[in-house]
Structures are given as structure tokens and as C-alpha cells.
């Protein structure tokens, strides 16, 4: 298992839960956990679900990707409530997570991963 894990936050549970399918293909040894939808599985996000995704991830240091603004706010709240180190990226959700997953699998150091994520920052 790699030292860095990835968490995926989306307003829609199908998107959050579907993403690991795409990412596992290129990153078999990376732990992916996701949080999608509200606590009643409506469109939205849930701080508790995000916290669970953080805690359930096998890695102690996480890269976090989200879809739109309010997801980021709940993500930040969750980050304040965990002991794990979580790096939050304002990149494109799918493309940012794909890039990060590929690079973590190849043991690229975080600083270099962040360099490659920089041009994907769009929010």
C-alpha cells in the first residue's frame, strides 16, 4: 500500500463511488475512499461522510479532490476535525484525481505531484 491515499468528494454519490473504478486501474496500490451526497443520499455533501472517508482511508496522508464549492467547505470542516494530514486541491475533480493516482502509484514524491497538479487548478 502506498503512503499517500486519495479521497474523493462529490455532490452525487454515484460520481464519488464511481471514480475509484477509473483510478484503481492505474493505481492498484493506492487507497481510495469517497464521500458523495448528503447523509440522506440526496445531492449535496455531508461533513460526517467526508470524515468517514478520511478515517477509512488506509493511508495517513491524503490528497483530497472535490467537485464544487460547498463540497470544499464541508471538506475543510472535516479536515479541521481529523488528525490525518489532508491536502486539499482546487483542481478539476476527475482529471486531478486521475493525475494524482497515476503519480502516487509510480512513487512520485508529493512535491512533484503538486507541480503536475498546478495546471489543473480551475477553482
Amino acid at each position, binding site marked *: 500500500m502506498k503512503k499517500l491515499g486519495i479521497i474523493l468528494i462529490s455532490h452525487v454519490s454515484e460520481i464519488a463511488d464511481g471514480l475509484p473504478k477509473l483510478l484503481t486501474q492505474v493505481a492498484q496500490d493506492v487507497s481510495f475512499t469517497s464521500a458523495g451526497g448528503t447523509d440522506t443520499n440526496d445531492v449535496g455533501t455531508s461533513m460526517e461522510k467526508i470524515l468517514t472517508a478520511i478515517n477509512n482511508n488506509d493511508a495517513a496522508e491524503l490528497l483530497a479532490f472535490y467537485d464544487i*464549492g460547498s463540497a470544499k467547505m464541508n471538506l475543510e470542516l472535516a479536515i479541521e476535525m481529523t488528525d490525518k494530514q489532508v491536502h486539499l486541491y482546487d483542481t478539476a475533480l476527475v482529471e486531478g484525481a486521475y493525475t494524482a493516482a497515476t503519480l502516487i502509484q509510480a512513487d512520485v514524491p508529493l512535491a512533484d505531484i503538486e507541480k503536475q497538479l498546478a495546471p489543473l487548478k480551475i477553482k
Partner: protein
Amino acid sequence: MLTVENTQKWLNNFYQKIEEHKDYLSELDTPIGDGDHGNNMMRGMVGVKESMARLQNPDLQALFKAIAMGLISKVGGASGPLYGTAFLEMAKKCTETQAAADLILVGLAGIKKRGGATEGDKTMVDVWSPVAHSSQLTTEVIAAAVAATKDMQAKKGRASYLGERSIGHLDPGAVSSGYLFTALIETEGIL
């Protein structure tokens, strides 16, 4: 001066206003958002009520925390972490001061930190800020602040995607914040 008792009354009054205006808030959120602000706030206030009901002889800090967690866990949209952070900040500050003006000010700072919005961005900040900075809080201050969001162009939140087209609509979070502070004025003994 905020006490456990009048804060509970304040939030119960806010609950009623949200219940009454739920559909209107969601309507406001339709042209410049995703049409759920009323439902979000209603779910949040049900969460707050439940959260408050679970408390046994709370102090003010525990009460504020319960309010915050009720909003954070139940709203599901941007207004959840925003209102939630405001009440979390009040929880932190209220051991030091219980003056409404001071607590609204730290609440405002929390909203700004959480959402990155500033005055004029057409968000709830545009109600919290004039309210926090008014020498005397009146319904006129609130009404003017809410109304002023109509002509603003949104710079944060979903409405910001519409650019200039966001002009001409009231901001839903500003309107719900207006209810919060109207409820505060109406609660005896706070101001």
C-alpha cells in the same frame, strides 16, 4: 446579552421563520442557484432542534456547538458549513463575551473564512456584515442589507457562474440570514 434560554428561544423563532418561508427561499435559489436553499435550511433547523433537545443543562458554549453541529450535519449545501462555522466561532468566543454584537462579529469572521467571500459578493456576508457593524440593530438595517443584494453581481457560490446575469435577484442566503437576525431582534432580552 445571550443566555442559554434566550438563545434557544432565538433559534426556535428562526426555525419558525424558516418553516414559514421555506418555499420562498427555494424559489429565490432557483434562478441563481439549485433551488434547494429553503429545504436545506429546513432540514438544518430540524437538525438544530433535535440537537438542542439532546442537551441536558447545557452551558452557552455547549448550546452553540449543538446548534452548529445540527446545521453542519443536516443542511447538505453551502449554507450548512457556513452557518455552522458561524455558530462554532460563537461557541469559541462565548466564554469571553456574551454580547450579541461581539458574537455576531466572530460569526461573520467564520463565514468569511469558510467561504472566502467578502462584502459585495452577493452572499449571506452582505447581511451578516452590516448587522455586525450596525450601532443599533433594527429591522430597517436588516431589510436594507437584504434588499441591497439584489443589485449585486455574485462573486461566490453557484450564482457566481452566472456573472452579470446574477444581478436583479435577491441572494437566498442573505434572505435567510435576514430571518435569523429578525428572530434575534424579536427575542426579548438579547439586545
